[in-house]
């Protein structure tokens, strides 16, 4: 793969990765948010495939397929199931499936994403400086998604939105790992993937229990415990 072609494909994959992350802030429909998350998983997988082709590493391409299958297939599937679980009365389905009352409205969220991107570029300077090549130059993109994930986590009030926020953070860290070092050692990568998968499963079960106990998944209802 020639230099310019490599840089272009990598930029395309990273651009899609970033766009999917930022668009999560734009949509309020939870099903659409899950679709965007799956799209981001595809972009992440493509990014790793490009890196693997560049290095001529079959191993890395195989890892890319695994990463893509987990993040574009299995995790979105689990989230869809959490969304579709029949609920015992209470809130209407339409109300449950939307982010009805985010703490920060959509327009402001998108502006915040721009600010977060600036912060990510500033913060990642030492990382880019250490080994400047096309892949590490894309690290600010991953860190932007990380900060957007945090933003989703603290401003969105649905249980599923928080799961998406957590997974955006995790996608961003995985992207950082592949962009900087072609990934952490395989044992660690497998362990991390398993942990993330199980964490989402646990959160899915807890979402179901939350519906049973609180009659909905609005996190503002969680205020039994305080000092």
């Amino acid at each position, binding site marked *: 793969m020639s230099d310019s072609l490599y840089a272009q494909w990598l930029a395309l994959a990273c651009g899609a990765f970033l766009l999917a992350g930022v668009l999560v802030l734009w949509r309020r429909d939870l099903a659409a948010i899950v679709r965007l998350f799956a799209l981001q998983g595809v972009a992440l997988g493509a990014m790793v495939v490009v890196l693997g082709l560049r290095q001529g590493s079959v191993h890395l391409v195989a890892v890319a397929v695994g990463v893509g299958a987990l993040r574009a297939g299995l995790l979105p599937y689990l989230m869809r199931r959490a969304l579709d679980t029949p609920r015992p009365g209470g809130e209407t389905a339409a109300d449950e499936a939307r982010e009805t009352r985010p703490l920060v409205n959509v327009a402001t969220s998108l502006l915040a994403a721009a600010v977060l991107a600036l912060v990510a570029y500033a913060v990642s300077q030492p990382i880019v400086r250490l080994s400047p090549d096309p892949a590490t130059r894309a690290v600010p993109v991953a860190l932007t998604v990380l900060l957007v994930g945090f933003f989703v986590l603290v401003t969105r009030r649905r249980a599923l939105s928080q799961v998406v926020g957590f997974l955006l953070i995790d996608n961003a860290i995985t992207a950082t790992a592949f962009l900087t070092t072609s990934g952490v050692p395989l044992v660690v990568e497998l*362990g*991390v993937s398993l942990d993330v998968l199980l964490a989402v499963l646990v959160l899915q079960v807890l979402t179901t229990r939350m519906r049973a106990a609180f009659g909905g998944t609005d996190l503002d209802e969680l205020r039994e415990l305080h000092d």
Partner: protein
Amino acid sequence: MTLLVGAPVLLPLLAGCLYAVLGWRPATAWLGAVAAAGSLAASIALAAVTAEGPRQALGGLLRADSLSAFMLIVIGAVSLLAMLASPAHLAAESAIGHAGPRAARRYGVFTQGFIAAMALAVLAASLGVLWVAVEATTILTAFLVGHRRTREATEAAWKYVVICSVGIALALLGVVLLHYAGLNTRAGLHAEAGVAAGAGLDWAVLAGNAAALDPGVTRMAVALLVLGFGAKAGLAPMNAWLPDAHGQAPAPVSALMSGVLLSVAFYAILRVKVISDAALGVGFARTLLLVAALGSLAVAAALLIAQRDYKRMLAYSSIEHMGLLALGAAIGGRLALMAVLLHILGHGLAKSVLFLSAGHINLAAGSSRIAAVRGLARRAPLLAGAFGLGLAAVLGLPPFSLFASMIGIVRAGFGSGAGAAVGWATAIALVPLLVVFAAVARHAGRMLLGSPQAAEAAEVSEVPEVLGVPGVLGVPEVPGVPEPGDRAGAVRLPRTAAVPLVAGLAAAAVLGVWTGPLRPLLETAATIAGVTP
């Protein structure tokens, strides 16, 4: 050797599998305790073996040195106490209809998996595997925290999983950046160390070549690692999950979480600090840890003053002690680290006794509100004695080992080697410590002394809305516990439940006056953790 190094992970794993197959029944109830005793024995043997140097197993995936061996002994001791208390706890829970056979089986599987994950964390040779094991503890304990399925339990479990997973995700970013720094060193770390693939995250290799790491990237990595593992260790600023989770989990699980899980996460910080000190000088990690320490102490003191729930009181006391550990680690040097390690062990023992007795008090009083418990000393002398002595231990009163270790940390802080800033920080830290002392002593006095009838009057006037909750007003709901009226509601403790309480307190007291064979282990472990370039 592989078997000995792997035993602390394998034994609980095996017990967990047996629980999965056989379920929790009278014949298997003590399996967890047997596994914990076996792990403890293996850890002691490992401590003897590693005195001469670190041992590897599983092709370099696991490594045990004196520090790991010491942490394994703490894990073994606390899990032995928790597992000895588990049969009585589950019997009492099922007697009031809180735990069926399925819940008991799940309890067996998850607690054993939890203990195995903690053992794996301290044995891991790679920071990546250490991370995986610490995150696994979050997942394994999530359902234990939420086992009651009430609103409170679900909320606690949700907060616990989200805050801990996100916090620990920061640590993963730190691991990734450290890996990056390790692969792009100035002196070419990889060629020099000749490490095999997959060893790029080995903390011994990283620490050995730390001088060649890029300072900019390493600084980011260390900050993220301390923040991330600090979230799991209950250090400020990400400690919001801790009181909720500790308050809702079953008593033996709270004992394990407070007694060892926090310290295992803190162990990760100690390992990171060794790398950071060698790469960036002692100042960077020290500043981070001092901020975390003073923040945690302040949070604990502020929320203990008006605390109304005794389980949350114990949880905030754990935050306080984690703050103390962070202070000790920030001070650095062998003496401070020896005190820190002794403090980890003493706190683990005393706090598990406290959580276990709090579990019994909760069963007897039917509420975890301080106001619901009055005159415990008269109704249940043994339980009140264990709870009172445990509180005396965590407040740092002699003869318990926490007295010696707290004095050790403070003395090291005022010592000449650490510098004026550390001295000032230690002096400032004494203020929240005194506040905590006064607050906890006052709450303890109310719970242990006074007449039982006062509880009912206080409860009715203070919180009319909880009247619907069964068991409130201090009226015992547990069959076998007599009604108030005959001997003013005396609470009898089953004999198997009393053993771990007495054993834990006795161990903490003995350690306070005589460390004996533990002393050389403490010295070598502290040298490893407190190594300064």
